[in-house]
Structure formats: C-alpha cells, structure tokens
C-alpha cells in the first residue's frame, strides 16, 4: 500500500462551458431506421443492445424509415404536429405572462414537445400518467382545456386546485394526469403502485411513470425499478433525458458510462432508447411498451434522448453554465420542424398551412388566456378563497383546524 499512487476524485464535467464551442461529436447517433424491432414478448436478455443505441424513424430527408416506421397514419401525424405547436404556443404565452407578473413561476418544455404529445396518443382512456412538471404535452394532446391550465397557473378563482399548488403542478384524474408533487422522483414508484393496483383488480389499465435524467439519481427511481420488476407491473417507465438538470449536466446523474436505459437491465426489464425529437419514433416505441404492459408482460424502461432548449424554469438563467448556442448545435434537431418536413414531404402539409395553423393556434391560446384572466391572475382579480386554504387537508375538517379557521376569521 505504501508504494501506491495517491488517489484523486474524478468529477465529470460537460464537454463545454459558456464561452466554449458546443460539441456533440461524442453523442453516438445511429442512422434512422437501422435499429431492429423485437417482438413485445421477446426475452429482454435478447435485446439489451437496444438500451445502448437510439431508435429513430425520421431521417434527414424527412422520410419515415425502418422497422419502427408506419405506426401512424397521416391524420394522426398531423394531429401530432398540431399538438406540439399548441404546446409551444402555450409555453410562449405563459412565459410572457410570468414575465408580466401574472404568476410567480413557469416551466417550458421547449424542444421536448414530441415526447409527451406522442406518448399521450398511444395511451387508452383510463390509463394514468405520473408526470413531472415538464409533460404539459400530455394534457394538451389529451384535450385538457387550456383555460383550466391557465387558471391553475394564475392561481385564480377558477383554479381547479384552489390556489394551493405552485403553477404548472396540474392534476386531472379524468385526463389520466396524476397530481404533480414538486418533490422529484416520488411519482415513479407511485406509478408502479397504481399499475400493481390495476393488476390486483384484474383491470386492463396501465400506468406511465415519468422522470428526468437528473432525477433518475433519486432513490425512488430505484424503488420503482425494484417493485416493477418484482411484480411485473403493467407500467411504462419513461426517462426524459434532456441533457440537463438545472445547471447540472446529465453526466453527474449517469456516472462514468452506461445509459439511463441500461439501468433497467440489472432488473431484467427490457429497456429502449429512442430519439425524443422524432415524433414518429416516440409514438412507435410508446406503443410497443404500452402493448407489453397491456399484455401483462411487465414493465419497460424507455429513455428519450432530447435537449432542454429553454431555461430550467423562469427562476433560471442557463447562460451561466452552458454555451448559448448549445441548443442549436443539438444534433437531433427540432421535433416540430422534423415532423413538419415529413408531412410536407408526404404532400399532406405545406409551409402555408403551417403558418396558417400557427396563427390559429396563437389565437386559440390568446383567447384562452383572455378567458382565464377574467377570473384573475396571481396578484389581481378573482382569487381562491382563504377558506380554501383550510379545506381538503382531511376529508372532514378536524376540530383543531376548525378552531384555526375561526381564528383566521374566515
């Protein structure tokens, strides 16, 4: 031991920091269409390679290619485009509303729209998402009213959550959207529990857990994988790898090597990596994983490779920790642009119709906002009542809370 060399701590760092030139040459991206598609009931041990590659459908020329292509018809793909555009327009307006002081906080999903929008369409009514704060696309694609989302964001008198929750922490059982917590990772094991309940009851509903790359480090990620594998729970365990966790790059959560998807292998859970900016690929993989769950074949881990284009939240300024141009250099492109080009290539869409729809969607979002603002924004107009603060802690208000409400004079 005495002649051993001194040890040293190895702290991973991203390739570049502000001032540097973005460099994604280290990201290994296979050509679209080249990754095989196993049967859903194939043995997980036989396709571990799918946890180390990237399933892609849309190639550079905007064509859908390979064994994962063909899952959607044109109308469905068009719907996907519209969903994504609506999410983006919604984000832009709400960001502005926050800057105008109409709410305290907002979080965009810029660049990641394909993931939640496509996934939602692969689900069936009755299924349940356990989302993070960055899956607003699940609600938008699922037809949840924009105005209700906005009322929540504004904490106004029509806020479905009665002002209790931080903006964007939506909840809608009817739309298969579990109440967002704010504490990272907790929802992942809850999704597994919900799925187990469906199996216990002999129902046919499945669950989807959602987690960010950074949050895979949380312990409840492990709990979820353990429980899901042990009971073969009908759940899809989604990991959205958008490269960043606030200021921290994904290498801190991922460690030395391996992929987030590969974490499933240690549990015998089949694990796929997919191009998160490719709507068609996301849909195809989601459908595959959901079918496995539905057929009682157990859980699937899916890692979506994408990039968080915007700031983490309105409280964050990413120029402090990564080059401004990094998002432009991101090699998987923009999900809306890519699907648009595909549809134009297929002759079912055009630049004109795109511009027209963009204007329509802009108007729809604006109208919703006007509607929502009639009921107040955070600091002006209609507010949830103070009584509401005391309600809902328990089903029936216990004596001590009643006393406190009286003290508060409401």
């Amino acid at each position, binding site marked *: 031991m005495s002649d051993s060399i001194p040890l040293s701590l190895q702290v991973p760092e991203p390739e570049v920091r502000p001032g540097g030139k973005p460099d994604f040459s280290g990201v290994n991206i296979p050509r679209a269409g080249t990754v095989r598609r196993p049967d859903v009931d194939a043995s997980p041990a036989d396709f571990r390679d799918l946890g180390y590659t990237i399933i892609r459908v849309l190639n550079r020329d905007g064509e859908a290619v390979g064994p994962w292509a063909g899952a959607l018809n044109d109308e469905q793909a068009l719907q996907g485009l519209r969903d994504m555009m609506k999410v983006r327009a919604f984000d832009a307006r709400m960001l502005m509303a926050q800057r105008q002081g109409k709410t305290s906080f907002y979080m965009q999903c810029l660049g990641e729209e394909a993931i939640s929008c496509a996934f939602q369409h692969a689900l069936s009514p009755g299924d349940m998402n356990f989302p993070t704060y960055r899956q607003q696309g699940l609600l938008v694609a699922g037809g949840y009213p924009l105005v209700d989302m906005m009322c929540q964001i504004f904490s106004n008198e029509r806020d479905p959550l009665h002002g209790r929750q931080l903006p964007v922490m939506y909840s809608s*059982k009817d739309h298969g959207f579990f109440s967002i917590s704010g504490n990272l990772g907790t929802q992942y094991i809850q999704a597994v529990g919900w799925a187990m309940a469906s199996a216990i009851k002999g129902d046919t509903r499945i669950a989807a857990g959602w987690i960010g790359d950074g949050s895979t480090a949380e312990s409840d990620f492990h709990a979820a994988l353990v429980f899901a594998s042990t009971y073969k729970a009908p759940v899809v365990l989604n990991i959205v790898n958008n490269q960043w966790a606030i200021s921290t790059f994904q290498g801190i959560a991922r460690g030395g090597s391996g992929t987030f998807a590969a974490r499933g292998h240690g549990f015998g859970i089949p694990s796929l990596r997919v191009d998160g900016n490719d709507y068609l690929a996301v849909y195809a993989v989601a459908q595959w994983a959901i079918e496995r769950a539905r057929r009682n074949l157990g859980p699937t881990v899916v890692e979506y490779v994408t990039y968080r284009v915007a700031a983490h939240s309105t409280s964050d300024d990413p120029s402090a920790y990564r080059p401004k141009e990094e998002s432009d250099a991101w090699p998987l492109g923009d999900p809306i642009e890519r699907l648009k080009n595909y549809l134009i290539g297929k002759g079912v869409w055009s630049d004109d119709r795109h511009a027209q729809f963009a204007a329509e969607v802009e108007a729809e979002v604006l109208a919703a906002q006007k509607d929502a603002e009639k009921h107040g924004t955070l600091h002006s107009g209609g507010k949830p009542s103070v009584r509401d603060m005391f309600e809902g802690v328990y089903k029936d208000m216990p004596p001590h809370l009643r006393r406190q409400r009286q003290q508060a004079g409401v």
Partner: protein
Amino acid sequence: MPRMTMIEAIRDAMHVTMAQDPNVVVFGEDVGYFGGVFRCTQGLQQKFGRSRCFDAPINESGIIGAAVGMAAYGLRPCVEIQFADYVYPGYDQIVSEAARLRYRSNGDFTAPLTIRMPTGGGIHGGQTHSQSPEALFTHVSGLKTVVPSNPYDAKGLLIASIEDDDPVIFLEPKRLYNGPFDGHHDRPVTPWAKHPLGDVPEGHYTVPLGKAVVRRPGKAVTVLAYGTMVHVAEAAAEETGIDAEVIDLRTLLPLDLDTITTSVTKTGRCVVVHEATLTSGFGAELCALVQEHCFYSLEKPIARVAGWDTPYPHAQEWDYFPGPKRIGEALINAMEG
C-alpha cells in the same frame, strides 16, 4: 367474547376488512407467506391469495410509495413497516405525498392508506427496534396518528383506520403485543387473557378516531398517556395511592382536546407521559395545549415524564424507559404544594 392478544386483534382487524372490502390489500416485508415477524398478518395470504397479501422488497419508500399509487387507484392498502425505527427511508412518501395528495389535487386524488408499525421499547431491542417516532407524524398536516393500548382498541381503531379516507399512521406498542405491561420488567408477564380489554368482539366494529378515553377516573391529577404508558401510569397511580385520572389518548391527531381539558380543569394538575425522547416529543404539544386551555385551573406546572434525550440504549433500557417509579415520583411531585 373471544380472548385475543393484541397481535390477534390486529390480525383480526385486517381479516375483517379484507373479507368485507376487496380493495383492502396488505403488504410489507415478510408479511406474506411467513405472516410478519410479529405474526400480525399470519394466514392472510393463505386466505385472500397472493395478490391481496404479499411480501415486499426491503424498501420502505417503495412500500409506502406503491401504497400511495394503489390508494390513488382506489384501493385501501394497509402496509406494515417492520419496525417504526425503519420508517425514515419512507418518510418523504408519507410527508410529501400521502399527507398532501388530497390537498394539493383538491380531492382529485386521495390516499386512504394505513401504515402499521410496531413502536416503543421494552424488549431489549436497542436503538433500532425501540423508537417511538409519533411526534414526527403529528407535526405533519394531513396525517392521522393512532396508538392503541389494548386488543379491543387495537382492532376497533385499526378497522376505523383502514376505513378512513385519509392516511393513518398506526403505531403498535410492541411491548403490549402479548400482554399489558406495567413497567415492572422483573415481574412475570401477564397475558391479555387476564385483562378485560383482551375481550375482543368478533366481526366488524370500530373505535372512532379522535376520541380519548378515561382509563382510570380520579380527582387529584390528570395523566395524559398513550400506548404502553397507559398501563405504566395506571400502575404508578396504584402504587403511589394517588387518585390520578389516567387518560388514554388513543388518537394523537386529531386529538380529543375536550376530554383532556375537562379532566385538567377538574384536577388542576397534569402529568404527561411518553416513551419517546423528551424534547419536541408529542408531550410538548400536550403541554402547550393544556397550559393554553386550562391555564387558570392549573395549580402546578405540567410535568413531563419521557424517554431521555439520547438514542435508545440496549443495556440501560430500564433506566431509559419511563417506568412506574419515575411516573410515581412525578405524581407525588405534582401533588405537592
């Protein structure tokens, strides 16, 4: 009426609710085939099948988190944490999730689950088989916290907890599992069969949450206790001959403040007892409430008898445990002046 130990009563409560409601499921470490390290779930898997009662991986956060998801689905999970000392890894799922789900979703989702766990000392279990963490739950809005002191209450309270629409922390004083315990560890163990509260009705009944009971009426001083300490306090009253009124709180939250203030207003003196460490224990809340509501009746400061502010020791267990001697001294002291 059948005679039951507290273990049997707890098991029976699960049996009754599982038979009545297919949404009740039971799981936890070693609770399935084996029936739990204290045998509280024995026979349930055999009776209700592996998807209603099963073994869980050793991950308390996973057990509680999965239960939250199941409860949100519509089930009524009743999960076991093997010892209360092991609940901390699952504390986040209790505090941030189960306790707040109804509130934050405005009732869109709820978490009607029961978390059972053996608590308290007196079995030479050392620091990790003896703790009494109730105060860590009573501080959390959205939870109910229950501590039975006998088989009759244990069954009735557990049924009420499982049927309750909010998350309930159900703490089982393990030293009471097989018999009442008056703190005299050097005397032979009395079985529940010899105690009136070992008479446990068959079938369904509830003991309502939020209601305390006077175990020993008295006029001189009020003793507030729960769990094992109810029996120790009764013994201390007998042994000192002080006419103490011993109140068994049964539910710590919501608390039955009326029963407490009625008694203290009458006696003018109050001793609070618990096994948990003194500082920031639930006794502090009791003192705060009693002095607030009975200030003008109090003739002496409220006294607390509690575990010392140290980890739970192994060899010095009986010096740590608030036994009849320490409680008796507090009673005598409460009567002076």
